[in-house]
């Protein structure tokens, strides 16, 4: 008798709970709305790392710290700026290097699911398309080397000609808000990274912007002709933060994997600080830079 009487109540609870989930998902239905903070605006790269290599053109044949294979070294050694054509002027501004080039970036939402990244250095434009894919990730193999582990195919190259910035897909890797997780109907103990037992937790939603890019033209990792090929893959994680002095920053961790010129993935991380406006935006073409 008790079971029969409670059945409608069960159904009502379940329907209500599922409704809450649906509403919650619908409320953050676009990547722009899923951003935990407003990331748009002007950001400047603060060059405190690799100063000599980034602010100036390194000497011919200087590829120290880059994991080039023999083919890559030969190509770098063969670099001859005197033979460079105007069509090659943007090679140092391609997607594998552009975030490392000293300059400013302007982030805007071109649409609810496309984040546009413009650079004043080299006048480049990137479009990060949120398409719901699940890219692979870097894993350490049994030999202790960093290696790419395929996930679901993320980047679908279209038939359009390759350009310097290629085709990028993006997703948010947002950690669960510990406050929300704790009150969750179905996960009272927390899901995955829940705070229980892990120490102090700041309430709120935090996470990374994950981007994968392929389908670009070959370019230079450094201005002195250190190459990357059009077979490379670029994986980026953008981590946004606010420091206790109120300044806003993001760090982009960039991994370049190139089967042609690199013996191992090339990993850098680059820091940008938010600016109040675009008054310091200084557009320079590849040739002018």
């Amino acid at each position, binding site marked *: 008798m008790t079971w029969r009487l409670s059945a409608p109540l069960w159904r009502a609870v379940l329907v209500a709970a599922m409704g809450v989930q649906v509403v919650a998902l619908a409320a953050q239905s676009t990547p722009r709305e899923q951003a935990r903070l407003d990331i748009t605006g002007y950001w400047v790269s603060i060059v405190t790392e690799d100063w*000599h290599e980034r602010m100036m*053109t390194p000497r011919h044949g200087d590829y120290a710290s880059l994991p080039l294979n023999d083919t890559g070294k030969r190509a770098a050694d063969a670099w001859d700026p005197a033979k460079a054509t105007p069509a090659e002027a943007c090679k140092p501004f391609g997607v594998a290097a552009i975030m490392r080039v000293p*300059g400013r970036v302007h982030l805007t939402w071109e649409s609810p699911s496309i984040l546009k990244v413009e650079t004043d250095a080299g006048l480049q434009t990137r479009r990060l398309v949120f398409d719901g894919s699940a890219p692979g990730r870097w894993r350490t193999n049994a030999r202790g080397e960093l290696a790419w582990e395929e996930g679901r195919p993320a980047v679908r190259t279209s038939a359009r000609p390759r350009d310097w910035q290629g085709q990028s897909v993006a997703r948010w890797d947002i950690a669960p808000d510990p406050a929300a997780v704790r009150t969750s109907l179905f996960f009272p103990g927390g899901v995955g*990274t829940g705070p229980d*037992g892990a120490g*102090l937790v700041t309430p709120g939603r935090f*996470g990374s912007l994950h981007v994968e890019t392929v389908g670009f033209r070959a370019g230079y990792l450094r201005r002195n002709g250190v190459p990357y090929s059009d077979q490379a893959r670029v994986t980026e994680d953008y981590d946004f933060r606010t420091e206790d002095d109120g300044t806003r920053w993001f760090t982009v961790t960039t991994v370049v994997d190139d089967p042609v010129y690199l013996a191992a993935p090339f990993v850098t991380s680059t820091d940008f600080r938010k600016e109040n406006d675009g008054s310091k935006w200084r557009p320079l073409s590849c040739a002018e830079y």
Partner: protein
Amino acid sequence: MRRVLRPRLWAIAGAVVFCLATATEARAQSDITGEWGPLYHEDQPDRVPGLGPADFAGLPITPGARQWALSWNASRLSVQEHQCQVHVLPYILSGPTRLRIDAERDVNTQRIVAFRQYISLWGQQRTIWVDGRPHPSDLAPHTWMGFSTGRWEGNTLVVRTTHIKQGWIRRNGVPQSDRMTTTERFTRHGDMLTYVIYIQDPDYLAEPIARSRNFARMSGLNEGNWIAATPCEPGEETAGPLHQVPHYPIGENPFVGEQAKQSGVPVEALMGGPETTYPEYRQRLPRSPLK
């Protein structure tokens, strides 16, 4: 009874599957414990073996810091009192080191109260308290690694450190005061750990420094491959007067201009300062490749 229970079970199972399927926010990782090896793809000359003397480019230092650094003489490292001076926290994770992170739990509650870090360079150990304890008084002793407390922001462990002994932020003598504070962020991306340190120094920095480094998870042959810590034993290495501190008097550093001559980087750029860290400074530099 069976006719009533079966639809109910299906409904519950459906709801659970639905909720699991929609719990996409939980896929990021936050376990930063384990063994990590450094990647030297960026800032390598600054880290290993270290930049040459009188090269402060890209550091937003004050004039006072510049003068301090210009008076620094590398022979100072041979003086007994300085032989065992380790890299302080703002620099040590940039050096040739491996990093092990362990979690320490309260035996009763089994909650994590701290993360212990073993830094292979000079066998340094540090504790990051995540149990909410406050930082000590300003008068408390300062150490190489300082006093650290942490909290999670999503999947990032944010660490605030004070009480660091006086040291350097570049190993060619650019000073760091004992009033320096740091905010570190440890964020795991797959099997990589991105480490960002934000350095503030009211005495020697005109603007804060943001530095980022990357570590790869050690596994396979590399896992557990550690060099034993070797205690530093100071000894007599110099023939000069006892306890004399080698230094350059003001205006007499012989290395100023040497690198400019060798490489083509202007002296004023090598002297550092906040203006050298902005992209527009590039317009003041030669465009031809370095020599």
